[in-house]
């Protein structure tokens, strides 16, 4: 039986859809059978993030209202063949589906997948209630900014209220340059900002994704960046997927690698001399 994970945030634009697509594909890369469901009915995006927008024929509403069979609506990913997408409808409203229908749908999907990721819409209204209906646990995505953190806090409260006590946090779009500026001086990244957010929200941290310009490029090219080995954000998503599979992995080095001459200087104690002044 698969586990149903809802990816939510409260605030819009923090990277729910990007996270769902990348984590889903990363799980697929590790051999898991994954189903991604876009529950943002009326404003579907997940198909674009995966580059499957041209193949969409049937959608979530069609499945729930019995227009088509589940198998007809599921789209297989271009790159990883164990990953499937169930797109949302673009023309309908979020009230056209009920939490009960979502639960029934998830029960049908559970036996044939290891992970079912639900991409939740922004906000805490009907769409959000639909998305969390059948979930086993939740991923809350937030950015290190006050508005996103407060909305995440509200959402965590609502999730707890709905009986979803297992909530994990992904801190998205963390600007590592700022981290570097606040670094502790001994070479390790100053994790103050991360700790602040995790302390404030009081939930387990699932991963930290550094801000990466290539996310925008990958959206333009309709190809999730997790597929490229060298991207730092992609690496972060792969780490998150491994943590979801139960591995224990420390946070990746978040500060960008230093230039060669700087590393050489550090090697010869230059850094220490500066410290002593």
């Amino acid at each position, binding site marked *: 039986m698969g586990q149903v994970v809802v990816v939510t945030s409260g605030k819009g634009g923090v990277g729910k859809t990007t996270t769902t697509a990348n984590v889903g594909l990363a799980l697929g890369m590790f051999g898991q059978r994954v189903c991604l469901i876009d529950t943002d009915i009326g404003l579907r995006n997940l198909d674009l993030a995966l580059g499957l927008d041209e193949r969409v024929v049937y959608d979530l509403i069609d499945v729930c209202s019995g227009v088509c069979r589940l198998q007809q609506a599921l789209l297989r990913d271009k790159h990883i063949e164990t990953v499937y997408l169930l797109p949302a409808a673009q023309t309908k409203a979020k009230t056209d589906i009920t939490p009960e229908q979502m639960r029934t749908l998830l029960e049908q999907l559970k036996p044939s997948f290891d992970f079912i990721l639900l991409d939740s819409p922004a906000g805490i209204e009907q769409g959000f209630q639909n998305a969390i209906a059948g979930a086993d646990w939740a991923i809350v995505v937030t950015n290190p900014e*006050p508005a996103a953190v*407060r*909305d995440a*806090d*509200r959402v*965590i*409260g*609502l999730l*707890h209220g709905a009986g979803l006590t297992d909530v994990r946090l992904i801190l998205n779009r963390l600007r590592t340059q700022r981290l570097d500026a606040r670094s502790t001086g001994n070479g390790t990244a100053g994790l103050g900002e991360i700790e602040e957010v995790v302390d*404030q929200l*009081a939930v387990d941290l699932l991963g930290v994704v550094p801000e990466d310009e290539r996310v925008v490029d990958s959206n333009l090219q309709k190809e999730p960046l997790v597929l490229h080995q060298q991207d730092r954000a992609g690496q972060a998503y792969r780490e998150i997927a491994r943590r979801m599979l139960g591995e224990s992995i420390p946070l990746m080095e978040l500060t960008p690698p230093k230039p060669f001459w700087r590393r050489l200087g550090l090697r010869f104690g230059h850094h220490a001399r500066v410290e002593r002044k």
Partner: protein
Amino acid sequence: MGHRDPSLTRKWGQGGKRRAMAYLPSHIRVKGSRDGLTFYFDGNVAMEVWLAELQQLLQREHHLFQGPAVPVRICFGRVPLGTEEAAIRACFASHPNLIVHRVEASSTSITSRTGEKERTAPTLLWGPVRSGAEIQSDGALIVAGDVHSGARLVAKGTILVFGILRGMACAGSDGDIEAIIAAWELACPVVEIASRRKSFEKLSAGPTLVRLEGEELVTAPARHLKRGQGGREQPWAKWWS
């Protein structure tokens, strides 16, 4: 402990209730502070009752009431009669180190264990109070955890937060002007006590309390708590007990 009544000695395994009832006088409470001892009397019972209890207390706990001179304050609960005050002073005369400074009719001396049951018990809340949550309490409210921005606490009594208070707190929602708000860290934009509001521009670091003085809310470092709110009478006493 030689003078203790042997019938009252507690054995392990025996219920503690009987001991507590027999051992502690039910109409007198004693509180120690830096400024000395304060005896709270329940003035509503007959004179013989509390007088006997006081004598028993001083006699039985004589080892506690020996030593250096200690100033004693008596809070009587109502205006004491001349004979009553004389009787109290006569009782204390047997302990020369207990110097009775004042016998006063304090309004906050309603601390007898009999009256305690009628008050609403404080609400204890674990874990963080998250944004959007609203917590109501009919008495005092104690939160063991942070109160996040966007959350709201409403209590008819005092609000204590053992964490960072970032959300809104309304103490004394029924108009109790003795209610206070205290937190490990006060990081909220506004607090309310008995419908008076105060907004903060600068956030305080460290344990802080807010109380009502006249018509205005004032903040103070929470270390003043142990001195009864910075010199004022102890409204706490009613739910400390």
